[in-house]
């Protein structure tokens, strides 16, 4: 089951660049939430603040509160602990190149010291099934390297890898933007099925995609969150004029 995310007064900087300004929002549990906005508006930075990946950059800084499932992830936990509970799928598929498919999926567990072979086998199978990749690779789990798959398959592999550690939240930073339409729709189906088990936050450039998979949508502009509401409202009757301009394609 997923958990909800409460963000209060979040500000983020890259060096002197004030990337996120005073973000407040509540992401509901077990739903998919989409974040839309033009390039460079801070949506990626925002999700990276949710699993504390933002601070891996030496000039990055964050202030504010993020509560995931009630836990203050900055004050009461360490980054490593958080990242085991909040999974991430990146824009470009990034399987570990020297590892087999099996090892890729199991990486999050094996590298954290888990070694029970039988259970690992089950988890790998379950994760690959959940990411709709099982049927295509089940015969070559240990023989094929993660990097030898097609782009869409690689991304599903990355999703399986993220699911294998049983996170409560799944962050997806434009997961389908580097993929062809067929793979994209497969991934959207996946998100649709997964959201009942996890809380999903998906950053997307594609408004239609947001409308297809997410119940709630947030619109980001220039580091601020302009509007956060149900997807239907955002797309049919936005409250803010800027949202309306973006939706209708006047910019971005």
């Amino acid at each position: 089951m997923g958990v909800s995310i409460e963000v209060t007064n979040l500000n983020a900087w890259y060096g002197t660049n004030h990337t996120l300004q005073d973000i407040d929002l509540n992401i509901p549990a077990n739903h998919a939430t989409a974040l839309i906005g033009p390039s460079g508006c801070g949506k990626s930075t925002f999700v990276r603040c949710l699993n504390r990946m933002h601070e891996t950059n030496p000039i990055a800084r964050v202030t504010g509160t993020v509560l995931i499932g009630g836990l203050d992830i900055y004050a009461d936990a360490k980054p490593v602990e958080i990242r085991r509970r909040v999974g991430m799928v990146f824009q470009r598929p990034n399987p570990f190149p020297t590892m087999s498919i099996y090892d890729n999926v199991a990486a999050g567990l094996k590298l954290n010291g888990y070694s029970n072979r039988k259970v690992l086998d089950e988890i790998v199978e379950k994760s690959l099934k959940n990411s709709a990749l099982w049927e295509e690779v089940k015969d070559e789990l240990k023989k094929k390297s993660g990097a030898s798959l097609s782009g869409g398959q690689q991304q599903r592999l990355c999703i399986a890898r993220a699911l294998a550690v049983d996170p409560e939240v799944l962050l997806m930073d434009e997961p389908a933007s580097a993929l062809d339409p067929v793979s994209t729709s497969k991934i959207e189906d996946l998100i649709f099925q997964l959201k009942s088990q996890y809380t999903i936050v998906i950053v997307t450039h594609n408004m239609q995609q947001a409308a297809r998979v997410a119940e709630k949508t947030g619109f980001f502009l220039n580091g601020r969150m302009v509007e956060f509401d149900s997807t239907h409202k955002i797309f049919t009757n936005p409250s803010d004029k800027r949202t309306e301009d973006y939706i209708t394609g006047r910019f971005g």
Partner: protein
Amino acid sequence: MVIAQVPEIRFNQSQLLTEPDLPGERPSAQPAQQEASAIRTFLLARGNSAWADRGFRWLMVLCALSIFGIVVLIATELVERSKLAWGAFGLDFFYKAYIDTFTGKPMYWDPVNSHFSALPFLYGTLVSSLLALLLAVPLAIGVAVFLTEMCPGFLRAPLAFITELLAAIPSVIYGFWAVSVLVPLMKIYVNPALIKTLGWTGLFADDNPTGLGFLTSGIILAIMILPIVSSLTREVMTAVPTSQREAVLALGATRWEMIRMGVLRNARIGIVGAIILGLGRALGETMAVAMVIGNSPEIQRSLLANGSTMSAVIANEFAEASSDLHLSALMELGLALFIVTIIVNAFARMLVWMVTRGTPSSVH
């Protein structure tokens, strides 16, 4: 007012319009509806390995600092061991010589009477290195220009490979070859010819029939530094952006003019760096030089005369140094060599870096 078309939705209307739970009813950290899976429990118990991270980081830092440690180590050891000679001769070591009362000639390196002067070795090092540069640099640049700008594609890789291979041959093997082939060649053919044609310059005297000497060592040094100067020059030439080449060509230049104005001019700082790096290598080259320079601590004008270099005399005399002062003098030579090569190499690296802009260049 419908602003945008709401696209075809796959899930039914009621699902879409459902308002998600309000923040006031957020679930607890550990979801109550379903027990956390075994995996989740396992991972939650793993801790944050802050100690392991910190320890690992410090270990890596320490090992990286060992580079500084090595420099400090060498410096302190050499300085320590040079103290005796420094106390005995001071700065005179580097520019004064003791005049032998019997012959009236300067006696530079006299273990018997404990008079030591570095002059012949400074001279020998300088002469052999400069000779090497004189012979090697034009050829190296020519090769670099050919390989970078003129070479047909299929030849480039094999030729580059050969150059790299020859850079890897150990000094002692070059020395062995020089003793077996080069020295007889010099003795029988080259030296007599030089004496006959250029003896009037005073640089090619007749009194050393062995085939050893400054010129021979200069030649073998040239052969040894060719690969490094050439490959570094190639590297800085390749670092010149194509746009520079194209700009010159677009003005109607011939290929040579393009190379001269578009490439060499831009790369000249780096090429100077490559040359200085070659100089650095020549200064410190030990084994091959020790085998062909004749090992005579004399300063002679003739290039065909025997001489010695700083590194060669250390290699030859260290193991059998006759006194503590002797050893200390050798150590002081080593210290001088250390400082000189560091300065030369640092300067050269800076020049090359300026052209390739700090991208980690290949290790030479």
